[in-house]
């Protein structure tokens, strides 16, 4: 139960931790510069505590319900968990690709990173046909290049290709 509760609280705790850091930083500034932040911070802290308590009560209720129908739930849970894990992995893989794209863009340049990133996304999406895995990324790079570089004069990172 504790694990389920902590899972529920993790996001609000991260948000609260950042807000606390921000508030502590602002304590060094004049009252004029931190008045709103102070007000908002304490409201957030109050809501965080209330949410924590209500989430705990809810988790406890859910847990006792689960305990009542343990056996039937167990078989259902196994299949739904696998599905959820697969779905979550897709999201994780996509986000990892995007992070790599951002990290590699300045060095490799727009053309290479966009091509590689598009191939990986297509693979994650289940595309296995080679013509599509090559053709679509090339098409996408050309379209984006024409729109942003040629049409809007956006200085896209050139990287090692110099284009």
């Amino acid at each position, binding site marked *: 139960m504790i694990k389920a509760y902590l899972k529920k609280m993790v996001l609000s705790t991260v948000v609260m931790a950042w807000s606390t850091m921000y508030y502590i930083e602002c304590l060094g500034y*004049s009252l004029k510069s931190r*008045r709103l932040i102070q007000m908002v911070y304490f409201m957030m802290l109050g*809501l*965080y505590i209330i*949410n924590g308590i*209500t989430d705990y009560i809810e988790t406890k209720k859910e847990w006792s319900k689960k305990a009542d129908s343990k056996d039937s739930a167990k078989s259902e849970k196994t299949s739904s968990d696998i599905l959820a894990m697969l779905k979550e992995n897709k999201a994780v893989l996509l*986000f990892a690709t995007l992070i790599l794209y951002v990290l590699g863009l300045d060095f490799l340049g727009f053309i290479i990173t966009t091509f590689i990133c598009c191939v990986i996304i297509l693979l994650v999406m289940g*595309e296995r046909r080679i013509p599509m895995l090559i053709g679509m990324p090339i098409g996408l790079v050309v379209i984006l290049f024409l729109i942003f570089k040629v049409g809007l004069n*956006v200085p896209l990172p050139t990287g090692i290709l110099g284009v």
Partner: protein
Amino acid sequence: MEYFLLGFKTIFSGMYLLYMFAGVSLGLILGALPGLTGSLGIALMLPFTYHMEPLTALVFLLSIYTGGLFGGAITAIVINTPGSSANLVTMLDGYPMTRRGEAGRALGLALGASFCGGVIGCVFLTLATETMANVSLKFGPGEMFMVVFFGLTAVGSLAKNPLKSIFAGLFGVMLGTIGMASTGTIRGTYGMVPLMDGVPMIPALIGFLALPEIITLASSNQTVDVSNTSNIGIKAIVRGIKEVFLHPIQVVLTSILGVVVGIIPAAGASVASVLSYNLSKQAMKDKEFGTGIPEGIIGAETANNASEGGALSTLFVLGIPGSNSTAMLLGALVLQGWSPGPKLFIDHKDVIYQAFSSLFVQQFVMLLLAAILCAFATYIIKVPNKYLVPFVIMFTLVGSFSNRYLTFDMGLMVLFGILGLLMRKADFPIMPLILGILLGGNADSELLRIHQSYDSFFEIFQSPIVIVLAAISVFSIVAPLVSHWRKEKAEN
């Protein structure tokens, strides 16, 4: 009014018409693609508007908004999957008609109803906005500050968990205060120069609103069944459109309801369509709603399109966006250097009235383009997600770069995307967060003005407007909590 009439002269110039056709088409196509919405279209086009004149940007984005509202009805009717929550009840009578082989008629009914609702919403917007905006002329720093608080609570009140919603809104306000304050102090940047001007709007809007949407679409295993759609033809669609005009009383009443609901921040198109459908059901007890009757589609589609007029009036009068799309519209205006808040309409009356004129024209453009698009709906719906996802993702990435030419903005967009997805999973609504980011900076400067103008913060409560806004805000927090508590008590 004179600006409004002059607006037609401007709007009918070639360039604006072109933007309207492009915007409505984009909104319709994205709305008609299962899993995608018109608001995603606005997010994708947001970076382009930075290079446009304010009126061009508004006309273009409003056109996408108009197209997207109807686009969602196509999937609701054809494949029993609502394009957005606003088209949820359209499905109830639309899909049974498709199963009977009347998809064309159902699409025509939805289109005619959307058109009528849209026009009535526009009439309200044009007639009422100025009167409503005159009230905001009386707003001082106290009222301005309370509008932000009112926006956060009103948007939060409709969420599943109002407390989580307000928490998200306050977090948004915190993010909105990052950067240089009006006192000159630089806060929360941790030495990162790109954050000096505050959290950049395009990465924030795309990251929090569009990226989680597309990642969710990528993670879903959606399959499309279009086996019942052989009867979509222009003739059937036109017959459906004509049929709407045989129900004038229902059209007008449900449109008015849509407008009223649209004015309430966050209620928007989805609540409007559900309420309107239920109202129609109660008023016409002899009809069997849910079996595929025209009245069901008309009730849902007039209200959700009419709510556009109400929602836009709240956006322009109070500067409070009530939905993802209107939040992005406001974001586009902020990019143009417009200050969000109650002075939005007063400061930019001429441009906003011209945009209103374009909204009327957009309804006709939508009618024409949607009739054509409906005939090809089955081909658009069948486009597989695996080809859409890479395109949209790369577009969002390059789009967030193109505003300030910084890779940092791309990284920030991805970070916000992760945060947005986690928030969705943990039932934290995104809208209040966006509202907080958009209005946080304003709230900060208004609070400073309050302390410069009054001896104590509580002196602002001498103003009746502040009292009314504060009372509504408190009510919108307490009422859902009490009803939730009562419900739980009854269950136990």
